[in-house]
């Protein structure tokens, strides 16, 4: 690294790139003074900080000031000058640099000349070296320096990118960042790029896009109708529960929830009918149930839920069925503060006995607990549970009746041992 005086001055006068220099003794001295001042000011802050109300003290960013680390000044003196070495060297000709040297100089922030890289081969060589340097900054710079427009026009050069994925991805990312959609679109038209970008949509994905389009059409109609109805003030539900936001651009399930909330009992022929939405968008049974459940529970329309879960077989018997496990149903109901009678009904439908008892105890569904213990014929558990119900309540009487029943008493002895070690 020979220093050449005239050249050095040349550099400082002409270069756009500012670099640090510490050749000047005075400069360095004043800087050290600066540091010391800075450190001293921190010290005083640290001392202040020991106050009790330390937490409340915030700086301009709204965060606590200062750090409590103590600095050893000697170590800074030791290493700092070396680390702050000027980035640029003094010699700085613009001449015949090889592609490798050119890239190297660019990495150091030095001026380069690209005039000599005019042949396709040279341009590509330069690109390959920039990729090899693992420096995204330089790869992107390459595209900036090689004039973008002429670049795009040059089909030959352009096709070369196909085999240079790293460079290509830098180019695409740059275009995305500067939001040059025109160029991006032009890129997209080229077949070989389709593998690298995830566009256009696959058939499966275009079905989603098509659905979205249909949904938007629906939302526009529903929004217009409902806004009118709300303003007119004649529909009770809008008065009782004013709409919080427009339904436009909401996801499908949110739309379904909205329709279950405001348009639940509409015939399937209307656009806003939940059943219509379910069929149009092929919503799964479970998804539909969950959404109806959430919406009707919010409105405390328990009878709707009853109807939702009730299915009738061909003999006309009814049975409660759910695609969602009943313990999850209970969970959703409970979060919507369903009354105990309602909870009780669904807790009773939970298949797993342990889970059922757990839920029943959690939600104080005494009947279920008592009946389960009765079926288990476990006197001990019944006795234990009597302590948990209210004195003089119907539940207590029920337990007492069960305990007094001689049949149960006798049976209990038969099974007592068995259940003892189970529980």
């Amino acid at each position: 690294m020979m220093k050449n005086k005239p050249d050095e001055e040349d550099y400082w006068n002409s270069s756009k790139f500012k670099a640090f220099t510490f050749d000047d003794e005075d400069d360095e001295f004043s800087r050290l003074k600066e540091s010391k001042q800075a450190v001293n000011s921190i010290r005083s802050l640290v001392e202040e900080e020991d106050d009790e109300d330390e937490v409340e003290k915030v700086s301009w960013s709204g965060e606590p000031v200062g750090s409590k680390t103590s600095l050893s000044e000697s170590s800074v003196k030791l290493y700092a000058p070396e680390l702050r070495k000027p980035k640029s060297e003094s010699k700085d000709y613009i001449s015949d640099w090889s592609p490798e040297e050119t890239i190297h100089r660019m990495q150091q922030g030095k001026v380069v000349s690209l005039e000599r890289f005019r042949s396709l081969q040279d341009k590509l060589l330069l690109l390959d070296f920039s990729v090899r340097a693992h420096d995204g900054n330089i790869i992107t710079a390459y595209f900036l320096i090689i004039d973008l427009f002429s670049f795009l026009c040059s089909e030959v050069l352009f096709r070369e990118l196909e085999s240079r994925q790293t460079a290509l991805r830098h180019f695409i990312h740059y275009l995305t960042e500067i939001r040059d959609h025109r160029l991006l679109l032009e890129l997209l038209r080229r077949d070989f790029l389709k593998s690298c970008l995830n566009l256009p949509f696959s058939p499966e994905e275009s079905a989603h896009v098509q659905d979205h389009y249909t949904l938007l059409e629906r939302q526009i109609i529903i929004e217009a109708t409902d806004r009118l109805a709300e303003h007119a003030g004649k529909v009770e539900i809008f008065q009782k529960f004013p709409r919080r936001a427009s339904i436009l651009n909401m996801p499908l399930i949110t739309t379904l929830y909205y329709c279950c909330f405001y348009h639940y009992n509409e015939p399937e022929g209307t656009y806003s009918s939940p059943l219509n939405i379910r069929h149009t968008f092929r919503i799964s049974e479970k998804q539909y149930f969950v959404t109806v459940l959430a919406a009707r529970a919010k409105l405390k329309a328990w009878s709707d839920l009853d109807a939702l879960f009730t299915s009738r077989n061909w003999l006309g018997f009814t049975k409660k069925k759910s695609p969602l496990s009943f313990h999850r149903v209970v969970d959703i109901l409970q979060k919507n503060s369903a009354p105990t009678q309602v909870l009780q009904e669904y807790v009773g439908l939970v298949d797993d006995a342990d889970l059922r008892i757990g839920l029943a105890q959690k939600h104080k569904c005494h009947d279920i607990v008592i009946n389960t213990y009765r079926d288990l014929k476990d006197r001990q558990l019944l006795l234990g549970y009597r302590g948990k119900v209210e004195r003089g309540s119907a539940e207590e009487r029920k337990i007492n009746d069960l305990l007094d029943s001689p049949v149960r008493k006798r049976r209990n002895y038969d099974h007592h041992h068995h259940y003892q070690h189970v529980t």
Partner: protein
Amino acid sequence: LAELADSPELPDFSLLKRLARDQLIYLLEQLPGKKDLFIEADLMSPLDRIANVSTLKQHEVDKLYKVEYKPIISTSDQVCFLIRPRIQTVKWIYVANADKAAGKFRRYKIIFTPQKFYACEAVLEEQGLFGDVTTDEWAFYLLPLDDDIISLELPEFFRDNFLAGDQRWVRTVGSALHLLHSIYGPFSKIYGIGRCAKMAYESWKEQVEEGDTKARQAEIGNAFLIDRDVDYITPLCSQVVYEGLVDDIFRIKCGCVEFGHDVTSSDKSVKVMLNSQDKVFSEIRNEHFSNVFSFLSQKARNLQTAYDKRRGMDIKQMKTFVSEELKGLKQEHRLLSLHIGACESIMKKKTKQDFQELLKTEHSLLEGFEIRECISFIEEHINRQVSMIESLRLLCLLSITENGLLPKDFRALKAQYLQSYGVDHLLTFANLRQLGLLVEQQPGETLTVMESKVGKLVNDKTAGKLTDAFSSLAKKSHFRALSRKLNLVPKSDEEYDLRVPRDMAYIFSGAYIPLSCKLIEQVLERDSWTGLEEVTKLLNGHEFAFTGSNGADLRAKSDAQRIILVMFLGGCTFSEISALRFLGRERGYKFIVVTTAITNSSRLIEALLGNKV
């Protein structure tokens, strides 16, 4: 926890702050006279750790503004911008300033940190501002967040590098490593795994060769570089160690957390620095959450005893008590009540979202057990429109552990996801697929050697049936293979005492040893990658190990040799840091974690969302 008596001392990283501060002051003085300073929003906290407002004022910074992408209102003749090298910000500077049109003359300076990019300068040039505006670089690469954590504070590294395939930060990482090496090196050995780690290593190597390094007493022995994409499982798991949990719930920003009124039980929120200086926090940060409560209540009892000492004191004793102990006790009291408040708030939030069931699902996925139940749990999560991030996180965990989803599951879950959270997430799915985080199993992938052998023996029809039977059994899964080879999932039938952890799995309730940390452990133990060939093959290779070039003599077992620098490219989690601290205590190492940013599952997924274009 018993710490080894001869645990080595950590190097003093405050030096890094000092260097950054000196450089910044120098740059500010390059623009003499009064000036207004505009600071990029995400640089404010890091800057605050380096130079406080009075330091800036001393160097003639008049007013401070946050870059908010609004028109610039400043009356100063000189305006300085301290920004990240982002095209968007540079464009804003141009748009926001109407000086040229108004015929007004001001001096402008843009300081890019940690470096400038050609692309940013090109914007200035394009707008005809190049020359009117001076640009500079503030080489602020590394911010020490704690005694053993250093961050580059570059969260965008993850998306830029792994999603966009843009290598703009590779050299930055190389320079950061170079800085550490020149102050605390020379390193005796460098290990690494991952494409980016390899490139960063090469960039660093080149920079070492450019400069002349003097022989120096090393303070750091070995370095280990690891790409985030080597292990996506770990950052996708729910964190249950205190510091990680606090980060998951309250989001620790630049080593500082804001506790809201639900924690402070007053109407104002409080910002707290979370580091080893906080005596209460430093004792619980690495603990499994289940131990934290009992620890805090013990601590509270001790505090009460200490306060109670006042009773029966005479005046003189009381005076000593007040001057010597009271202040410390009050400080401890304040911290204690904050962390107790935080714990309560965490408990409340976690109970509400059925955390137990969520953890059960995660653990089943890691074990490869009851996958159908996991899928239906995730499905219900999506159907109920519970957190969109959480649903994606679980989907990704499912996909990575199962080596992709069966086509019919993939389509059904994706369709339901789009229906629940919006069709614009098509782009999110595209992003996740590109990273291999959420993919569909390719037909044919399930065909194993065994099946094809059997297929030769029996007729086609039978073979078809067999394929169906096998496909569920013999799915090729890298994670399962890795997990078996490295023993990542401890046997579930054994009791795991979380109070006395026996391995790094404690950070996930004993259910899983973080892959990233296990790799580090294995390589350090073997002092090479030898014997791990099958593992690295499953991780797509790109592993390397080099001996330091600077003739660093391997003074056996000197203190520096037991200081290990681990650099995560693309972010690391607090759980991983806790695991490494544990490993360090077990093996007599001290780990220094350098990361491009602190991450967690939400940050990772959020970086990949495509719904807000």
